[in-house]
Every structure is written in C-alpha cells, then in structure tokens.
C-alpha cells in the first residue's frame, strides 16, 4: 500500500539531506518527494510517498522522528486527505495534431502554457490517476519531456495536517 507521509520540519539548512540520507541509508525507497515552506516561514513541509509493502512504514516513521529537525509526521489517510501533483508536459504538435491535443487538454481541464511551431507545453494538476490518464493520451503524439513536482497532500476539514 502506498503511504503519503506529511513531515513538518524546521526550515533549516541540511534538513532535506538528513531525510533523503536516512531513506538511502536504511534502504527505504522514495516514490515521490516535495518540499516547500509552510504558512510559518520557520517551518517547511516535506511530502513523501513511500510503498509500505517494501518497507515497514512504522520503522520509516520512527527513524524520521529521530531526526532532531523533524517536528511532526502524519501518515495521511487517503479518505480524509486531498492529494495533488502538478505536471508540465511538452508534447510534439503539428498543425494536423494540434487541435486534437487541445481537445484532450480541455477534457482534463489542463492548460496550454506555451506554444511553438512543433510543440505545446501542457500544465495539468490533479491526482495520480488523472495525471497518468492525460500522459497516456498524449503519449501517442510524442512526449518530448515530462516534469513533475511530486505529490503534495493536505488533510480534509478543520484538522491540521
């Protein structure tokens, strides 16, 4: 089972390397990782996706907790949290295929943010399913590059993540 760990950390130099080093050292694999400042500039939020089948999530969490700069870890329940990822997709587009691509983009409520004679850049935000869906539909046109932010997540309702 995939787990989404939301890790609140002190916004200090070296924190990310401590976390990534810990994963490497203990043999845990990271599927996706996203970092950014929170509403409090002293704190950052690291969202890590890990596969709980390959590694005991309890041990991952406990080892993370030992890092002095880690303040709080939440293993987000998919039913009571919202996850999103932003992806930029550069796709081949000729005058023949351009309108077809635009149709796909509209269906997925994505955006075209750059146009050139031979390419389009599509910006899409959503869950994993949505992103994989649009990528698979755009793939036949020829993907030049795909750049993903990594998944971020927040808990639903009043409860803080």
């Amino acid at each position, binding site marked *: 089972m995939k787990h989404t760990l939301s890790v609140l950390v*002190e916004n200090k130099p070296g924190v990310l390397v401590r976390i990534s080093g810990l994963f490497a050292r203990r043999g845990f694999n990271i599927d996706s990782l996203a970092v950014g400042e929170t509403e409090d500039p002293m704190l950052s939020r690291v969202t890590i996706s890990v596969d709980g089948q390959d590694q005991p999530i309890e041990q991952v969490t*406990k080892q993370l907790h030992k890092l*002095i700069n880690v303040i709080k870890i939440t293993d987000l329940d998919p039913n009571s949290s919202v996850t999103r990822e932003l992806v930029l997709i550069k796709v081949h587009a000729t005058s023949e295929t351009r309108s077809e691509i635009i149709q796909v983009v509209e269906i997925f409520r994505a955006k075209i943010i750059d146009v050139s004679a031979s390419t389009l850049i599509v910006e899409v935000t959503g869950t994993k399913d949505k992103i994989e869906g649009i990528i698979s539909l755009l793939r036949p046109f020829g993907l030049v590059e795909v750049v993903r932010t990594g998944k971020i997540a927040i808990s639903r309702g009043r409860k803080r993540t």
Partner: protein
Amino acid sequence: MKVAAKVMMEIFKNEGVEVVFGVPGGQVMPLYDALMDADLLNVLTRHEQGAVHAADGYARASGKVGVCIATSGPGATNLVTGIANAYMDSVPMVAITGQVRRPVVGTDAFQEADTFGITLPVVKHSYLVTDEHELPRILHEAFYLARTGRPGPVLVDLPGDVATALIDYDPDNPPKLNLPGYKPTVKGHPRQIREAARALAEAEKPMIYAGGGIIISEASDELRELAAYAHIPVTTTLNGKGLFPEDDALSLGMLGMHGTRYANYAMTNCDLIFAVGVRFDDRATGKVETFAPGAKIIHVDVDPAEIAKNMAVDIPIVGDAKWVLCALIEELRKLEPSPERHVPWMRQVADWKQAHPLPLREDPDGEIMPEFVIRKLWEVTRGEAIVTTEVGQNQMWAAQYWLAKHPRRFISSGGLGTMGYGFPAAMGAKLARPDLTVVDIAGDGSFQMTSQELATCVSYNIPVKVAILNNRYLGMVRQWQELFYNKRYASTCIECQPDFVKLAEAYGAQGFRATRPDEVEEVLRIALASDAPALMDFRIKREANVWPMVPAGSAISDMLGGGEA
C-alpha cells in the same frame, strides 16, 4: 561583546566540562588560544582518533559528555571513526571541528572538507555554524542533545572566522534552546508497564536481557532489585557488562556469539524475555528466527525506533530504563508473585551453569593461556579496576573471563567494533576516575593502531596500564580463517612487530614481558603498582581460540567449543 572562542570556554564551564581532548590546526587556533586560559584540562593527543576515543572513554567512565576538538579537513576526517563508534554505542559526546573561513567555504580551500556531510549518518545531530550570534545557543543545544534521551555524538563545525568574531553571552542568562522537534519520552506508558508486570508475575521461565541502556540510565540498582525480588536470571550484552555483578548467582554473563553456553541455552528455552536497554543486535541474537522461539518479549527502550526494529515484540515500553524499572517493580510488588513458581527453572539454569562452565584451559606446552592472564588480573585488582578492551579475540576473552562487578567499569567498542579504541579510551577513563586502576586488555594488532598515544599518557602522566595478549596474529580473523577458510591465514600473521617493552620505554613508559604462566602474576603486580603508564607484553599461546562460538547466521544454541558436556 566577547571573542566567540572565549565564550566557548565559558559555555564549557557552564556545561561542566573538565577535560577536552584534541589536536590543534589552522582553523582551531583561536579555540586553542582560548583554551590556554580556560579552567579545564586540555589534553593534546598524538592523533585525532586518540582524542575522540579518549573523549568516548571519559564519557563512558564518568557518565558526562566527552569533548574532542580537531581542525578542519584531515583533523575532522580523522575523528569520523570515533564519532561513528560513539554513535553506535550511544555515547554522549560533543565533537568540535574547525572549518575553513566562511567566505571560502565551498571553494575547495586548503584543508577544507565537508565535515557536516561526511559525518551526517553517524551523528545524533550536527551543526555548521554560519552566524556567530547563534554559536552560544548551538553549543548549549549540542550538550543537551548529547546527554539526553538516547545519548550520542553531536558535531559542531565551526568556521575559523566565527571563532574570532565578537558576540554577546551572559553565562547567568544563557540563550534558550530551540528544539521543537526533540522531546524524548522518559515515562513509560502505565498500561504497558502493568501488562509487563503481569507477564513477569505469570512467567515460569523468565530471563532478563539487559544492555548498555541500563548503564546510561544509571538503573543498575533498580535492575538488581527486580532480578532479586522476582528471582530472574540476568544475561547482558557486551556493553551491559557491569550493570549486574557477574559474580552473583543470578548472573549468566554475556549472551550471543561468544556468550556463555548457559546464557544462550537459557535465552533459547525461556518463556519470557524482559529486554531492557538492548537493541537485539545480531551478535547477541544470532539467527533471529530461532532466537528465543517460545518466549514472550517485553522490550523497554528510550528510543522508539529500537522497538520492533530487529525483532517482533509483545509488550513494547518506550521510556527511560530507570523510570520504567521503578514503576514496574512497584506494579510487580502489588501482584506478589510467588517465588515458588521459578524453582524448576532456576534449577535448570543452575544445572546448565554447572555443566557448561567457561573453560579454564591449561596449555600442554606450558604457554600462557589468555584467560589465565585475565583471571590473574581480576585477582590482583579484586575485580575493581576499570577494564577497557581493544577489538577482536582480546575483547571476547575479556568479556568472557572478566567478571564485571560495577557499571561504567567495562568499556568496549560494541557496535562498531573499532580496533585501536581501548587504549585511548583507557586514557579518558583514567582521567574520569583517577581513583581506579585502569587497564586496557589489548591485542597486539589493535594496540598498534593507536599506540602513539603512549606519548600522551607519558606527557600528562596518565598512568593507564596496557595488557597485550600478544599472539602475533590478527587473532579473531585468523580464528575465522582456521574454522571457515581452511586455515589459509590471509593477511593475519603479523610476526613483524615492535619489541613492545622497548616501545613503551622509548616513549618513557614502563614495559614488562611475561612468556610463561608463572611470570604473569609478578608482571601484573609490578606494572599495576607503579605510578607510571605501563605496558605488559603477555606472549600467549598463538593459536588459542575464543570458545564457545556461534557461527555467523546460526542459532545461539548451536555453539562450537567451550564447555561442551
């Protein structure tokens, strides 16, 4: 405003630092200049590895934070082994390293190394000081982190121009610590403790498996009380030696790869393990799948990540060992467990103990056996000395035959297994406990890794004693080659070695040698009676092995040699 290096001396004083170990260099010159006027002992070692192990030995013998100092680049990298060693054995330590001046950090400047990055996996926490005004808070945090919770080494990497900057510091009003993510759990969960008490009261074949955490937590008395009150045999890990008197009838000595047969049999056959301050290390458990197959396990540790890391646990208790033991004994007394129910088990354990004692071998060729030296050393010091060990056969013989009676008096590199540790650690221990005899039980291979510290001992008149069990082999590896590599002794014969007696004398220490058993006691008596650092070269039976032994990956009940019935 004061010079930061001077402020560091005030902070050392505030934190109770009595001694620092180190080697100077370009980027720590301001620090060394301030040390000249500081009210503490500054010990110059001959190598940074000597400094870090000495700080470690000092910390283990005293329970205080050990402090070591090295300059940037090679000075700092020379500390790495010792920092990793302290990390593995949870030793409170603050390591201060010089770093190149801030404007040139990241430019591959002279003697620049990324010390923060290199040490990251082997520290409890670390700091690169980039703002001189943060230095006082950082240094206070370093000491606090090093000694609280599960102790460990904390590194402070200090650019040379930070040490000379002007900062404010009021020793009566030190800066507040800022550690929002650090809250070690001291108090164990009451429900878990009640459940543990019930399990202990119901067990028919219980065992206590205790380790270094008891010594760190100063909980030896409580553990002894529990064992005596509930009639439970005690086995310890290597770093647990001394937490329970090994001449007590309830003691089964050390368990594991070179543990006693009776400890390993008892662990394999018990129905309950009360594990406290241990981490189910592979050297203790052997093959995990066959470790104590019929036992329920209670595991007490201050570090939640140790619980269920190597072994599934039935009753986990996160908390400080002393606090948990006090609460547990109280709960157990309420249940008034009957001592009768352990009688058959205690009889069984006593039978094992009698049937499989550690062998005291006599050599048919009249050569010195290692256990003879260790037992004689114990007799001469009445077992009151602090013993440090090197790593290898010497360490395991010491663990088997030295009956440790007190906590903080058996000091050994457990987790990392660092050759060259014992001698500098003995220096640190002697400075912590000048009232006690301190002996490094050494091998000739290990001792040669840090023997240059003889100069430090002589220069500061630190009268530690080194007892080399000299077999002119890297003996533990040779033993494995004998058993598992068809006696092909690849790179383990070290017949070319210095004359250790002359080596000691060359440094201004005393040197003695014994080649026959009847010379051992006299050498020990003379060497231990002297006020000077002294080295004893005991020429032991060359191919003497450590028995019993559990081959790697086997069950701990499958032992080779030593006390077979």
